[in-house]
């Protein structure tokens, strides 16, 4: 198991170096000048030239890269061109909020989705199965911003049960978590159902039933555990996406997370902020994938020996 872990960790290093290089180069190829954004609508050529010098934007690109990579290695992601604040501090302020939202969406999606999946697999063709199939198609097809706006309209504007948007106590978390998790609920339900159906038809389940085990033990202890691998895959992937890309949900629900920070940074051409947050999010994504792999190994020990 520990060789497995070490191997995966070592594999992550070239991935992250690749991300660093690509992000750095992409921004120099992309149009749009950070200094033009800094100076606002009215500026003059002298000020622009001075700022370019100060920010070392006129240095050769390999010098700039070496300077940046040097900082990253020392744990310094630089300071924002626009706000002058350290990028690491900005990320530290926003990432916990994104994590909270993603984790809530995931817990919600896993609880509801897996339950529906198990129940519909146990009674295939039953009424719950049919409803969940229909719901899943809808859930997968609806874009998140549409779901988000509908949730706001229904629960905040019309029923007035929950606040429309913002960050604060748990009532602020419910709607965005639901909007963000809705797609996963649908998807998890379908994946759990098909995986469970396959397992429930296998020999060892028949054996378990023949031994006279109660149905609940058969379904939950024997079948579900063996059906989990594809479910973990979906959970891991979705969680990774939620942590790195809940931009629409954060925007609609005025959630002060990292997604909005990245989008703002891009529209203002705040290079250090874009580079720093993309790099950070890549680390997060790699970490989530690693944890997913470890979870596979836990669910199916054969994975670790491949």
């Amino acid at each position, binding site marked *: 198991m520990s060789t497995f872990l070490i191997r995966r960790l070592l594999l992550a290093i070239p991935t992250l170096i690749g991300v660093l290089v690509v992000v750095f180069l992409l921004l120099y190829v*992309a*149009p*749009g*000048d950070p200094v*033009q*954004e*800094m*100076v*606002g*609508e*009215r*500026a*003059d*050529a*002298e*000020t*622009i030239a*001075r700022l370019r010098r*100060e920010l070392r934007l006129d240095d050769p690109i390999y010098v700039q890269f070496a300077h940046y990579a040097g900082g990253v290695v020392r744990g310094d992601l630089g300071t924002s061109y*626009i*706000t*002058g*604040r350290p990028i690491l501090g*900005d990320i530290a*302020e*926003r990432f916990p909020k994104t994590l909270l939202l993603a984790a809530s969406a995931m817990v919600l999606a896993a609880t509801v989705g897996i339950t529906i999946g198990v129940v519909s697999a146990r009674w295939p063709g039953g009424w719950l199965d049919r409803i969940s199939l229909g719901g899943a198609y809808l859930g997968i097809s609806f874009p998140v*911003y*549409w779901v988000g*706006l*509908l949730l*706001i*309209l229904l629960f*905040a*504007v*019309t029923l*007035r049960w929950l*606040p*429309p*948007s*913002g*960050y604060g106590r748990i009532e602020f978390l419910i709607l965005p978590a639901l909007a963000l998790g809705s797609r996963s609920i649908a998807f998890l339900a379908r994946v759990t159902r098909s995986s469970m159906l396959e397992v429930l038809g296998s020999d060892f389940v028949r054996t378990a039933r023949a031994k006279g085990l109660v149905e609940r033990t058969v379904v939950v202890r024997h079948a579900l555990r063996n059906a989990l691998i594809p479910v973990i895959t979906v959970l891991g992937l979705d969680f990774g996406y939620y942590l790195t890309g809940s931009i*629409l949900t954060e*925007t*609609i*629900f*005025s959630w*002060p*997370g990292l997604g*909005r*920070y990245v*989008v*703002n940074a891009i*529209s*203002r*051409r705040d290079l250090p902020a874009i580079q720093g947050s993309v790099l950070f999010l890549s680390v997060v994504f790699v970490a989530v994938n690693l944890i997913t792999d470890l979870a596979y190994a836990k669910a199916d020990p054969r994975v670790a020996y491949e």
Partner: protein
Amino acid sequence: MRLSLLPLALAGSTAVACRGGESNPQRHALVDSRDTYDPRSLDPALSTDVPTGRAVSYVFDGLTQFTPDARVEPGLAQRWDVSGDGLTYTFHLRRGVTFHDGSAFTSRNVVRTFERALNPATKGGRAEPLMPIRGSDAFAAGRATSVAGLSAPNDSTVVITLSEPLASFPKLLAMPIASIVPDSIPADFGQRPVGTGPWRFVEWKHDDYLKFAKNPSYWGGAPTIDTLVARIIPEPSTAVAEFESGNVDLLVIPQGETASWEQTDEKKALLQSAPALILYYVAINTTRGPLKDARVRQAINHAVDTKTILDELMGGRGFLARGVVSPILDGADTTRARYAYDVAKAKELLTAAGHPNGIDVELWHSQDATISRLSQAVQGYLNAAGIRTKLVQRDASSAREAARKGETDMTLKTWYADYPDADSFLYPLLYSASKGPGGNVSFYASPAFDKLVLSARREQDDAKRAALSRSADSLGYADAPMIPLFFYNDLYAVQPWIRDFRVPTIFNGQRWTAVKILGSERRQ
């Protein structure tokens, strides 16, 4: 980022905005929803965006300030005198004013503030409003240790000498970047600002909200409301939902929802409108190909039916432009004849300019939903007149950069005046020295126009100055370096429990000092 998300979903909502009734018993903080992104900083020296400028106007004072209807009035300067040659301004400062940290405000703060804003080490943008001061360029370039035209003969007097006369100078001093800061500037000043303004800074949760508490000892009288909250709501449809839920007191009506608010009486009763100092226009680069010929540019103006565009695409929210000076400012001419929508005339002009078979041009625009729709309409009109137009869409930053570098034939964009004066349109948009990053992306250069604008800048007599501005505007309009489309009207919804609110014409013209919340006195 502007996501144009189903405005219809909310427009169709049955929610009634004023369900809270005539008073709002839950709170006596006023909640604003206008900011769509986090301010850059709360340090006046870094103020280049609207959320920053607004917040700065709450915490700080300038020597002068704007009223909601965009007049300039005394701020920290109680009054000022101008010398006969228009070069020397003597500002007599208010006495007994203190900063929120208790330190006294004196003339020395003014000198230090301006030097700080001009100092490259502050890492702000260009302190444009302070550049007219004599010696400011030498100081900003590091060639002088002080600004020659800036002195404080005693604690309550500041004397400013300009390098050339500039009649609008007192208005420039009401801009956020000229707000007066205290002597001690800690490293986190942009996060925890200290000023002399009507509101003391309380907290700033990034991308979430800014909170201010009233300054009880404000020299202009303490605000009526205790707390002011500026929420940052990136999605306009969400801001509408917050308003309909009664959580915010003030809403800018998104362009796409104008009609739905004006249709129902209940909602319409909450609306307040004011002309904004925003010009929508198509800059025509006068240095590129066939566009060098004024007749071609006039043909372009004749080819576009701006009235239909304003009525159909903008719900009539604005004034048709007859030049670049907003109709609410001195120097505007609201009777000037507009280019008539006349395709035959446009084709005639093109033929006269040697293009009987029409021309090919590119029209650049950003991804903003309104700008994109307008661009498509303009393209349709131009194509119909033989001006074959290709749309080029880029994100705002790239489109701006290309236009500033002169790489675009035409660009559809907006211009927000920095201060309410004809000069804030004429000088940046069309003066030759403002070419490129200065704002003149038409690259228009006319010695006659420049001469008129310069004379207007120097003229101290208001009536004469207005006449000069008017002449300059007429000349610029005739040369057609742009299609001035229209001046936009701001439309706000205001909760019924808010009293004495006025829609500001200029972004930093509403400081909430006189605004009341009904019923809040009772609870105090």
